[in-house]
């Protein structure tokens, strides 16, 4: 009986793993094969494995530039989001001031607009301020679109920190600024890690804003770089797969690094 239950569970888990990981494994295999090989047989094993495609993509297909652009833009945006978002959330959760809730819901309500609605207006604004087709412009846009959700996630967490802790820190002689950095922020670290991962993954893969707001080859991010292998008539499927594999490495690293904190954040109740 027990064996039967275990086997059923194992089977279900294996099916789900295959379902979730299948496309990933497939893309990984294709990243080691040439487009000609892929056209001949979509699902064949990568024998022989063309490891030289990775250096090729990195050096001759301009991937190093895309990669460092992506890294620069996304890391800046995530850093700003984390600091500004945490500070805003701290204020919303902790200070009583006029229109606190009004402002909070105003900011939060902007997430109901799909990007397609605002993107033309954004484009024009960026052009006017000379930020169109610049890395700084894209960082600003990324911060703007992700800030509401970041504040929302963090505010819920900050609001659960007992106010006695802040009062105790005030009695201990700390200023509001110091209290944020030395009490609020460290206690909220699990929630902060959650938003870091979330923002990083979303922005690392972001395509729509990047394709509309960036044209210059020197400013392109990874998702745009991968798109370059899709011609009008011909798609270099093999190189797209290689590009995807390169692009996914940082996501895995960030997730591995922050996931322990993420789990802590989700199982919450960390403060009592």
């Amino acid at each position, binding site marked *: 009986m027990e064996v039967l239950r275990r086997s059923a569970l194992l089977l279900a888990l294996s099916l789900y793993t295959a379902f979730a990981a299948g496309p990933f494994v497939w893309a990984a295999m294709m990243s080691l094969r040439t487009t000609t090989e892929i056209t001949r047989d979509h699902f064949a094993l990568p024998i022989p494995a063309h490891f030289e495609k990775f250096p090729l993509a990195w050096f001759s297909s301009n991937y190093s530039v895309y990669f460092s652009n992506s890294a620069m833009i996304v890391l800046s945006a995530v850093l700003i989001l984390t600091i500004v978002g945490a500070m805003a959330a701290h204020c919303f959760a902790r200070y009583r001031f006029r229109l606190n809730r009004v402002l909070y819901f105003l900011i939060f309500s902007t997430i109901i607009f799909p990007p397609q609605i605002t993107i033309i207006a954004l484009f024009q604004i960026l052009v006017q301020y000379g930020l169109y087709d610049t890395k700084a412009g894209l960082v600003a846009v990324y911060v703007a679109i992700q800030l509401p959700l970041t504040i929302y996630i963090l505010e819920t967490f900050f609001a659960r920190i*007992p106010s*006695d*802790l802040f*009062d*105790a*820190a*005030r*009695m*201990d*002689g*700390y*200023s509001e600024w*110091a209290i944020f950095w030395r*009490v609020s922020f*460290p*206690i909220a*670290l699990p929630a902060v890690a959650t938003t870091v991962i979330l923002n990083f993954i979303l922005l690392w893969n972001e395509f729509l804003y990047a394709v509309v707001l960036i044209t210059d080859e020197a400013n392109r991010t990874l998702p745009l770089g991968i798109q370059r292998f899709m011609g009008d008539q011909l798609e270099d499927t093999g190189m797209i797969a290689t590009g995807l594999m390169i692009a996914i490495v940082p996501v895995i690293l960030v997730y591995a690094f922050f996931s322990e904190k993420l789990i802590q954040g989700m199982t919450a109740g*960390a*403060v*009592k």
Partner: protein
Amino acid sequence: MAVVTLDRLSKRYERAHKPAVEEVSLTVADGEFMVLLGPSGCGKTTTLRMVAGLESISSGKLAIDERVVNAVPAKDRDIAMVFQSYALYPHMRVRENLAFGLRRRGVARPEIDQRVKDVAAALGLSELLDRRPHALSGGQRQRVALGRAIVRDPKVFLFDEPLSNLDASLRASTRQEIAKLHRRLEATMIYVTHDQIEAMTLGDRICVMHDGKVAQIGPPLEVYRRPASVFVARFLGSPPMNIVPARLDGTEDRLSALAGGGGFGLDGAVDPARLPADRAVLLGFRPEDVSLASPESGPRAIVQAVELLGAETIVSATLEGGGEIAVRAPRDLVAQPGEPIGLAVPPQALHLFDPATGAAIPRRAS
């Protein structure tokens, strides 16, 4: 060295229809242990938080050592507070919790370490210095909270019901620790509680609060023996003071209060000039001041229930003509519900209150 003066201090919260604290005036002498005592919601915490600087002052003056500090932020008042919830920083070890306040004040590193070590030793926390708060028991957390205040060596200590989250036996021992602590440090302390035993045992003086106002200030026994109002009389003591309506009879030195079908002789204990015109009063006497007498003459009551507590016996009874009372009787008393008992109370143990205001009618100075 710190004298804390509250001068008609008031607090009105936004959108509250009446002030949470109203014109509280109080001077806490240097080195004094002052207890703020009152039922839940009477404004004790609010008063304490105004002294701490955590709550703004709506009106009135707060001074520490003659210096008005209304506008001085909490961090610059040099006051330490022990919170009801302990408020330990969950992300810091006990050692860092203790040192946090000193770091900010620019105390040198070796001195911080020394002071943390000393305080930890004094409170029996030495073994726990590297633990996080979540790995401590309630009593240990409470001691860390105390230690965090002590280590700073502040001008004034504030306590907000620090024992209310402990179980009964731990509460009793910690109470004695706090008393010892006060004797050792000789620091000015303000201690909030709703527990009369804590108030009686710890306080140099007690300030009883009621509805945001001061009801009475004085040394514990004085407040117990000379309550200024019906509220104070009933708040202190367990079971509380018996209060029954009575009518005064007789003249001058032969006054007595009529209740329960008999007279309680006052024997000149009250000043006749201060009596209400219609001579209707509230008569108060503590359960332990009643001695049982023959029910043939004098005030009488019918026994309703008898509680045998071992060391003593509490008798609940209904006074003849109405009014519930409690009597603390010797443990060998034999009484059955329905039995009549006679009551005798010595004149100096009788209290008279004005039925309209509840205020005590002053006794004649003796």
